[in-house]
Every structure is written in C-alpha cells, then in structure tokens.
C-alpha cells in the first residue's frame, strides 16, 4: 500500500515538475519576479494593480504621458489587461499627435498597444466609459493611429491645422 502511494506521488510530482520546466522554457521569464507574474497569468489569478492604474490615469490627464506609461507598465507587467493597454495606446496617440505632423515612432508604438488591447477584447464588445476620452474602443483607436501613419494627399491640405486632437 505504501509502495503504491510513493509510486503515485512520484508519477504525479514528476509530471507536474516536468510541466513546470516546459512552461518555464516556453514563457521564458527574464527575472524571478516575472516568473511569479507569468505563473499568476497561467493560473488565472492575474490582476492589475488598481492604485497604480489610477495614478497613471491622473498623470495621463495632466499630459505627462511617459510617466503615465511607466505607472501602467508597473500596474500591468504582463500586458494582459485590455483597459490598461487601451490607455497606453491612447497616451502614445496624444503624445504623438501634432497639428502639422504626427510623430510616426510614437504612433507605431501606440498601434502595437492598440492591437494588444484589441486582441485581448476579441471575445466581447469593449467600450471605455471615460468622459475625458473621445475615442472609446480599441478598433477606433487603431483606425485613428493607422490613418495618422498613412501618407495621403490630404496631408498637404493647409486646413489640416484646424483639426482637433481626440
């Protein structure tokens, strides 16, 4: 009886440990802290740090976009929260937007974040209810960033300087 118990425990433990090793090589975390984050994502217990998210939103509204993104990176280290990634994308949009021309590098980073947000909300409709924002969904934001990156004849229209940032 004891032998069977040891054998069962051995098989279960070996399989679990082997799965952990395979997962570690697949996830490739870069630090011990990241191991814990990725493990909580895999276990479904991952949560965004709300206080840091709100602090980031405060900075965003004061137009301190780089500082806001820094807070959001700490709030959502695994980049698994659609709302945080939406705000990250929005911060790149607002920082990169220009009356005469847009900053393409920032718009590209914004597009990446918007795509992450869109991918995370692929299963259900997602709208951000924030009165400070004029764009409410990741798809709209993606479209706005993409149109900002395109070169068209409209770019040479002098009336373009009258448009408004969203």
């Amino acid at each position, binding site marked *: 009886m004891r032998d*069977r118990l040891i054998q069962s425990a051995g098989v279960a433990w070996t399989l679990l440990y082997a799965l952990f090793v395979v997962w570690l090589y697949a996830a490739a975390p870069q*630090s011990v802290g990241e191991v814990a984050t990725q493990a909580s994502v895999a276990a479904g217990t991952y949560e965004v740090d709300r206080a840091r998210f709100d602090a980031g939103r405060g900075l965003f509204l004061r137009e301190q976009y780089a500082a806001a993104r820094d807070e959001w990176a700490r709030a959502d280290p695994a980049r698994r929260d659609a709302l945080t990634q939406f705000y990250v994308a929005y911060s790149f949009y607002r920082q990169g937007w220009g009356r005469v021309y847009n900053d393409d590098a920032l718009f590209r980073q914004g597009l990446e974040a918007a795509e992450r947000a869109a991918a995370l909300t692929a299963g259900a409709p997602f709208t951000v209810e924030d009165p400070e924002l004029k764009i409410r969904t990741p798809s709209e934001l993606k479209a706005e960033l993409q149109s900002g990156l395109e070169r068209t004849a409209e770019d040479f229209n002098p009336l373009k300087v009258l448009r408004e940032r969203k």
Partner: protein
Amino acid sequence: MGERRVTNRALVRHLLLPTVFLTVALLGGVRVAAETGALLFVAPPLVSLVMAMMLVSLFVRGGSVRVGSWLTAERGALENVSHALTLGALFFASAQAFNSVLPDAGLLRWMLSFFLLWTLWQNQFSYFDPRRLLRSLAALFGTAFFLKHVLLASVYAPGGGWLKRLAGAALEGVTLGTLEGRSYAPATGYISFFTLALYVGGLLLLPPAPEDDDPPRAATRTRTPVELEGEAEGERLLSD
C-alpha cells in the same frame, strides 16, 4: 529497519531521482545576460539530444542502467510508468548537462561538439564498468566546463578578459572574429557548476536496477563471454 530501507529506496527511485534529473534539465539551459542580468532559457539544441542519446546508450552498455530491470512486465503499470519517467528525466538531464557546457554559438561550439561526439562514439566500443564510466563522465564534463566557463568566458568577457588580452598580444594583427560570442554574467558559470554537480550526484544515486539498489561503484552486470575476453585482452595489453 528492513522496511524503512525499502521505503527509503522507493522514495529515492520514485521521487528524489526524478526531482534531481528534472532540476538538471531546468538549470542546464539557464544563462544570465551580462548586460541586463536577465534570465535566458536556452532549449537543448539537436546536437545535445544526440549526445544524450549516445550517453544513455553508454549507460546501458556499461551496466549503469539495466533497462530490462527498470521496465518489465513483472512490475505493476504504475511502477513501470514511474520508472519510465525517471529514465526520461535522465535522458533530458543528460541533454541539458551537455547544453550547459557547450558554447552557444561560433566555431568553438562546433569544435567542442565534435570532440564530445567523437569521445562518446569511441566510448561505445570500450569496456566500462559503472564506476569507470562515472569517472570518465566526470572528467568529460569537467573538461568541457573548464573550456566554456573559464577559458571561453574570459575570451567573451565585456572589455576582454585575461585570455583575450593574452591572445591579442600573442596573435597581434590576427583577427579573433571567429571566437566572437555572447557574453554571460559570472552567475551562469556558478549555475552550470551546480547543475553538473547535481547531475553527477544523481548518477551516483541511480541504481543499475531497481531491485538491487546497489550504488554504481559496487554494481556490475554479468559480462558476456565476448566482453570478458575483451577485458582480459585489455589487461594483458596493459601489463605488457
């Protein structure tokens, strides 16, 4: 006393050995980047899987592992599954032990791979008992460890280590481009040392067959007449 001994042996076979070998499999591919300190997980390359296969074959030929005794129809299914997992863990630990001592890129990686493969191939035709095999393996891994983590680490060190400066002085005007490789933090060498020590420790604990549980130094399998003749011939040559 006898029952406790049986229980302890079962614990070693079913729990401790898989844990040791899987830990080797985990740590064998871990590197620490020199610039950022980030962990890097290097999966075993194909060449180290081939080496592991040859090494396991050497274990079987040398009598360190009697597969027929580990996996047999006389045992229950659960015990056979547990033994198969232990042997599987031994294979992956061997692959990762090689991964740990092989340079990750460059000409030296291929040179060292070639020498290791050649040594393993030569050993396939030698007569080993478990004790001699273990000594030979400790020497093989020790040499490879020294080459990678002492000599090559000095060549790849940011800013150039003592060996690079020495080689630069000796070979002034000759390029060392083929020696270029990624530099790792010193912690990588410590991890590799611990991994190899754990691997050799695991091999020491591994009984040739589950029922006798004799440590490798005492265990010998029954030699075939051809092997006995070969050993006698070898001893005659040595005495001459």
